């Protein structure tokens, strides 16, 4: 399947993100501009050194086409492409940028993502009126994922309190992150008593609507030696995407035994990524992971599908502290989508930035001890697209 792959061929030499939140006083231009220039500063380069860019944007109202990058960054006509792949848009922009470096086509490239959701108003993701077939039901995003929760309660015996622990853990982590949208700790009681969004998911089971941007600069490991992070650049070990049925997303055959209790796209993308990276025991080998937690149920199921624990055991493992900041695998040490919100096109790049800093030992106040190998994971659409990236410290 993977022929030559990109393992050890791409290095992250600088990255950064904006503050995430309800950024009423900023537009998408400000956000990308700020993320990019901080990343350049982190890398120690001038913008003219960028050879090509890939930008993750989900919504048309945030921006269309790679020309967005030119509008905002003025890279003097350098190649640029907009990537859209649901919630994996940002990480897929990174994947495309990685391929460009690994192939030798370019020396230094930009992978970035931005989304400006708050200008649209309303509650929940905008645009549901505009997508899809005129007659088929259009459940909201939490409604789609909550159907998995309903089924996991039925099959695994999980409870609303099990889900609440995900929110409590992630907000606990996020309270230490200066760029998080939400920095307050919450209690299980607060989660349980919050208004329903889509039964059984309440307000604290759902990630928020936020604005934000993140940017990473990539080159080859050889060239990385001549930049600021020569000693602590980060290596890309693998990046894999799996696409499964997006419509009809509720079909019974969406993976064997995976009837709303597993995300087949995650299973497959993880399988590809572990194979390329040479990881055989993810629970032991991976130190920290940013795992897609658009909803609390999503994180639990994903932890199983990423083979961090056995199927049906995620709730128990979480309760036992396995996924805590100082547990066996720190899951969402940044605070995750729960603390940052989910400006869709940017989220993948935000996760990659976070794991890069963790592996560099630069995650001030939230540093996972001895983090050497990290994982980033997005799941988008109605369980349709998964992107999984594995990063490690340089050799």
């Amino acid at each position, binding site marked *: 399947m993977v022929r030559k792959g990109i393992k050890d061929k791409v290095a992250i030499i600088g990255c950064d993100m904006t503050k995430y939140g309800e950024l009423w006083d900023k537009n998408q231009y400000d956000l990308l501009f700020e993320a990019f220039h901080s990343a350049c500063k982190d890398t120690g380069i001038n913008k003219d050194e960028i050879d090509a860019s890939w930008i993750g944007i989900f919504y048309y109202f945030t921006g269309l086409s790679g020309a967005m990058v030119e509008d905002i960054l003025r890279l003097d006509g350098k190649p640029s492409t907009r990537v859209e792949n649901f919630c994996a848009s940002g990480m897929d922009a990174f994947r495309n940028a990685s391929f460009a470096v690994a192939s030798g086509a370019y020396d230094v490239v930009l992978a970035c993502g931005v989304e400006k959701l708050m200008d649209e108003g309303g509650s929940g993701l905008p645009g549901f009126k505009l997508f899809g077939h005129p007659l088929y039901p259009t459940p909201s995003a939490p*409604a789609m994922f909550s159907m998995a929760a309903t089924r996991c309660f039925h099959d695994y015996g999980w409870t609303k309190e099990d889900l609440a622990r995900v929110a409590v853990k992630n907000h606990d982590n996020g309270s230490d992150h200066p760029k998080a949208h939400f920095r307050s700790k919450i209690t299980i009681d607060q989660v349980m008593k919050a208004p329903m969004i889509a039964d059984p998911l309440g307000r604290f089971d759902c990630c928020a609507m936020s604005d934000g941007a993140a940017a990473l600069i990539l080159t080859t490991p050889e060239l990385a030696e001549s930049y600021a992070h020569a000693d602590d650049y980060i290596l890309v070990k693998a990046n894999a995407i799996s696409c499964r049925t997006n419509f009809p997303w509720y079909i019974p055959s969406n993976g064997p035994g995976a009837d709303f209790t597993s995300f087949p796209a995650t299973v497959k993308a993880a399988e590809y990524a572990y194979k390329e990276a040479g990881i055989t025991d993810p629970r032991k080998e991976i130190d920290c992971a940013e795992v897609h937690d658009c909803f609390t149920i999503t994180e639990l199921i994903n932890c199983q599908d990423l083979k961090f624990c056995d199927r049906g055991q995620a709730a128990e493992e979480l309760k036992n502290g396995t996924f805590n900041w100082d547990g066996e695998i720190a899951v969402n040490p940044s605070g995750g989508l729960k603390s940052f919100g989910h400006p869709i096109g940017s989220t993948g790049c935000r996760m990659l930035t976070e794991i890069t800093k963790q592996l560099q030992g630069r995650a001030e106040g939230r540093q996972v001890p001895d983090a050497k190998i990290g994982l980033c994971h997005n799941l988008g659409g109605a369980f349709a697209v998964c992107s999984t990236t594995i990063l490690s410290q340089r050799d």
Partner: protein
Amino acid sequence: MIGIKSYGAYLPRYLLPRELIGKAWEFPIVPGTKAVAMADEDSLTMSVEAGLDCLVGIDPKTIDGLFFASTTQVYTEKDSASLIATVLDMREDIITADFTDSLKAGTTAVTRAVDTIKANKDIKRILVVAADTRAPEPSTMWEYGFADGAAALLIAEDDNLPLSIDDYYSVSANVTGPWKRADKDKFIRTFEVKMDAKFYLENIIKVMSEILKRNELKPEDIGAAAYYYNNPRMYGRVARMMKFAQGVAQNSVFFQLGDLGTPMAFVLLIGALRRPKPDAKILMAGFGDGADAILMQVRDRDALRNLGKTRMGFIGHQKSMKALKNYNKFLAFKEVLEKDRYTRKSSAVTIWRDTASVYKWYGVKCKSCGTIQYPDMLRSCYVCRADDQFERVKLALKGTIFTYTLDHLVGGAYLDIPVPRCVIDLDGGGRVLLNMTEIEKPEENVQIGMRVELTFRKEHEGAEFKNYYWKCRPERGRP
């Protein structure tokens, strides 16, 4: 002979106690209840229900025509009959027509169906569906009467039929009784109620008396008389003036269901056919700018009894109805309250292209692995990945909930929040995602493993036309 081969009815799930209307406006309290359709129902969707009930055990492909009768048709330049026939999965080489603008449209459609079958050797069966959802002006006495419902009669030519149609007689009368201007009025108006009553009595008595006379029958020869009336006093006066014996004039509808409008005479007839007497002669009459009387006779009592057992008909619906607890719900159902109604984009092109799946409820079966799937927009099997191996299969209108949620975030024009979004495994195969309607306290009542029935409802008004699709509802007992 030409007669009635089958019948079906539809009464909406909810009843409004008249007491609630009285309390809302401080009117004198009137006893009884009336049938109220939900906001996602209209004359078209209720006709589909009545049609489904009528065609239990009958192949829709054997029907040669569909006549739709209503005063509350949903379009003017666009008929309803062709859409109802499509949803009922009838053939394309059939005749369809809408009979509108008069409350006697139902009985008139029956007489035209009889004539068409007589005149055309290729047309043997015509399904006549009548439905109304007349909206009364709030705080008027009309609110006590106007109710919603539908009924269907399958008119056919056959050697053996449960009920023959032996004669009809009609009169036309131009009276400015109740009216509703096509270009201006939302609600029905009237000029002089007492004059309306006089013309009603004159017309309905005239057609029924005349048809008896033409057929050399006396009132005592009639076993059942199902004639339209819009208040109980009028019903009694007609019965007395016609000298019908006790129990002949059918009055099973008004007290509980109200004035159903166009389908009222059909529903009264269906009620009368529950306990058929051998060879009984039956009268049905409709009124509105004139009147129609139709003379029928019981020809096959067992067949009639069998219809009663196999269809929800009148009783099956009646016993599964539920009283509303407040008057405001009724205003919401009637869309009197100007709610900000969520609309979606739509496309007449997409819907037309997907007619087989979205209206006729067909899925596909993979010839390679046997999996039944829905919708049929895809060309490659999602189980075995075989390409172009699909054949169309008709899907069931019943199933079991596999998983669900209650969506508080995205409602719909015709959906109450929270919306139960249900993933359903259909009986016989196929998994679908449908919204649920007719559900009270979904937090308590929706469950994995719950049995549901499909019902054709209004979904939204995207692109400024009526967007209909299937929803599910808790079982009401449709066969």
